[in-house]
């Protein structure tokens, strides 16, 4: 279905605007809303994700104050994982910049790299869980371990949603449907990916600085 995206607005003349008349309040063409519906939908999704983790954060902060709170030793895998996810975020940004210059091959390469690094992060997180399990720290062991599994698990699930979206974008890229003028799916995916990256860094700091 052809969609008038934000990118296309530069090259397609918008329909003529009828002058607004009087009335109860305001005038002008309301259809010239500056942001596409997909962008709004994405930011709404991101807002709900942020609120979900804000709720969990408040629970974390409240429970951190109870006497029974015991910090666990965070698995060392988290450090390389963080680097991998950060690199993945950089890769998708390079891909986005490449498509804007219509460097389609570079876009595909960076996109693929970003996906591979994302999968690497998920694998690394599972390895981190294994590290904890080998150390005898399970979900119900302490309050912090419960939070650790819960927060990393929920973040991982959301990131896997991002990988599904990224595969979809990659498929479109392979079938040459992303161009400098029409690459909104890649832009949306990159935004989601960056927020997931930022969310992980935030969660890592939250767990680290207890």
């Amino acid at each position, binding site marked *: 279905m052809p969609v008038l995206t934000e990118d296309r607005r530069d090259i397609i003349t918008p329909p003529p605007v009828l002058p*607004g008349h009087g009335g109860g309040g305001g005038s002008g063409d309301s259809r010239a*809303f500056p942001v596409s*519906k997909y962008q709004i939908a994405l930011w709404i999704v991101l807002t709900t994700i942020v609120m979900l983790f804000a*709720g969990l954060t408040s*629970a974390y902060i409240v*429970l951190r104050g109870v*006497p029974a709170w015991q910090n666990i030793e965070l698995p060392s895998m988290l450090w390389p994982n963080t680097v991998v996810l950060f690199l993945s975020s950089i890769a998708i940004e390079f891909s986005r910049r490449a498509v804007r210059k219509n460097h389609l091959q570079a876009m595909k390469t960076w996109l693929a790299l970003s996906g591979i690094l994302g999968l690497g992060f998920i694998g690394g997180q599972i390895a981190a869980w294994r590290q904890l399990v080998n150390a005898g720290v399970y*979900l119900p062991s*302490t309050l912090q371990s419960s939070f650790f599994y819960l927060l990393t698990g929920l973040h991982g699930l959301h990131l896997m949603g991002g990988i599904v979206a990224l595969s979809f974008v990659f498929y479109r890229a392979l079938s040459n449907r992303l161009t400098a003028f029409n690459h909104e799916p890649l832009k949306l995916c990159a935004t989601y990916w960056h927020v997931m990256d930022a969310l992980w860094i935030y969660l890592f700091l939250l767990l680290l600085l207890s």
Partner: protein
Amino acid sequence: MDDAHAAEHHHPQLGFWRKYVFSTDHKIIGIQYLITAMAMAIVGGLLSMLMRYQLAWPTSLSPIMAKIFPVAFSGGIMEPGFYISLVTMHGTIMVFFLFTAVLTGGFGNFLIPLQIGARDMAFPFLNALSYWVFLLSCIVIFSALFVTSGAPMGGWTAYAPLSAVPQAAPGQATGMTLWITAIALFTASGLMGGLNYVTTILTMRTRGMSMMRLPLTQWSLLITAILGLLAFPVLLAAGILLLFDRMGGTSFFLPAGIIMNQMPLAGHAGGHPLLWQHLFWFFGHPEVYIVILPAMGMASDILSTFCRKPIFSYRMMVYSMVAIAALSFVVWGHHMFVSGMSPFLGSVFTLTTLLIAVPSAIKTFNWLGTVWGARIRFTAAGLFALGFVSLFVSGGISGIFLGTSAADIQLQDTYFIVAHFHLVMAIAPLFAAFGGLYFWFPKMFGRFMNETLGKLHFWLSFTGVYAVFFPMHVLGIGGQMRRIYDPTQYMFLVPQQPVNVFISIAAFILGASQLIFLFNFFGSIFGGRRVTEYNPWHATTLEWSVPSPPGHGNFGVELPTVHRWAFDFAVPGEKEDFIPQTVPATVQAKH
């Protein structure tokens, strides 16, 4: 838009199933929401009838009931656990599956594209998915009534630790798990809906429909959707923690040393039961505004139409709704005044709570300003909108008592609370929803509902709800506890028992009078008087500029252009006493 045009002219004839069942048309989805929520209302209403039966005659033997409910009425008297399940299921069904669903899911879906001049929602498939997930959540919560261990017993607020321990009570095992599942599904459905409402209202308004020309219904739905998107994820977070406590052995809400049913609960330490209350009410208070705000918006539009006057102070109506929504996130502590919170924090929550009285009072005075001096057309829809204002004021005033921590500590968990929240967040929105149904029924089905039956329904309901809920204030001040199973167990409550009997009889009459509505609603779908004009109420908004019911794509080849706000009633110098939003201002100048 080209796609929509193509669809308008060339869409293949859809079969019955695609057109009325698995539809992505917002109008069908809206009606599906309405009818499903109505079915849930019948279930929730019947549960409340059983509760009223028990409260009026707690100790009398009833062989008939024992025959109908052999387990719940074993020996002819209702089991206490069954009563608590009734309270829980009634509250849950009414708050989520009736009010939230009917106002945002039902009216929101039906009205948003029609009133802003769009052909459908921004994401029609997601919209349909939202309904089907909602239906699934209804089935899950309904099934909780029929599990062998019993329906959930934790109240609609599902306070921990009772909700976090399956062995706390029979209903807290499978029943509670079903409750959490249903609420999680409902949350998913609500988020899909909210995403659609916000995106559609922001990006798909037709030419000339600026934000300040939106009908108040649209403003209220937009603000409600934003509230839902911010509040529901927090409930989901709390639900996830609860599920882990129940099934994963974690201790988020479970401290050490809990004794349940005379058995110590091993393996948990460190958790905090009050944490649940904080998370729940951080969601819970915005939730009550998710229910009341669309009711306010719809009542405003209906009142203005039947008063034949512009709404009084449109902009203040919008700003006060924004203010109410913003304040709703900083008042949750007033549900927890007796939880042992610091008195200083209590006074902060008292202050923020009482601040809500300011925008609420602005709205009330604006409704009164709209009604003042008007030649009111007393249609069933108009009467219900007026009834909404009355009930909102009656329920709102007791909120000032309850929001004040010093008074609330006395009144907490009594029937005063029950009276307050029923009037302000259940019955008032119900009246607005009835008003909306009588008002938009011709647009939905192309037929009118019977006005005489509608007015009869209004007067029976209006006197009925006051007869049921007003005496509850007295019971509450007299000390009758909320969720009490048998008030006559306490000597000091025995003298009040005739009031309970009175309330129950009034409740049965009120419940029976809703049959008039059901008969009128379903009878009129097939046999009501046909609507012959687009705009039978002489209203101004865009949905009245198209056939009843509107065709696929809502508007003709061209989307309408909006030239004025939604409240041009009784404009001086005009022949008609209303000017639709589509009429250009230049025509006005010719007169």
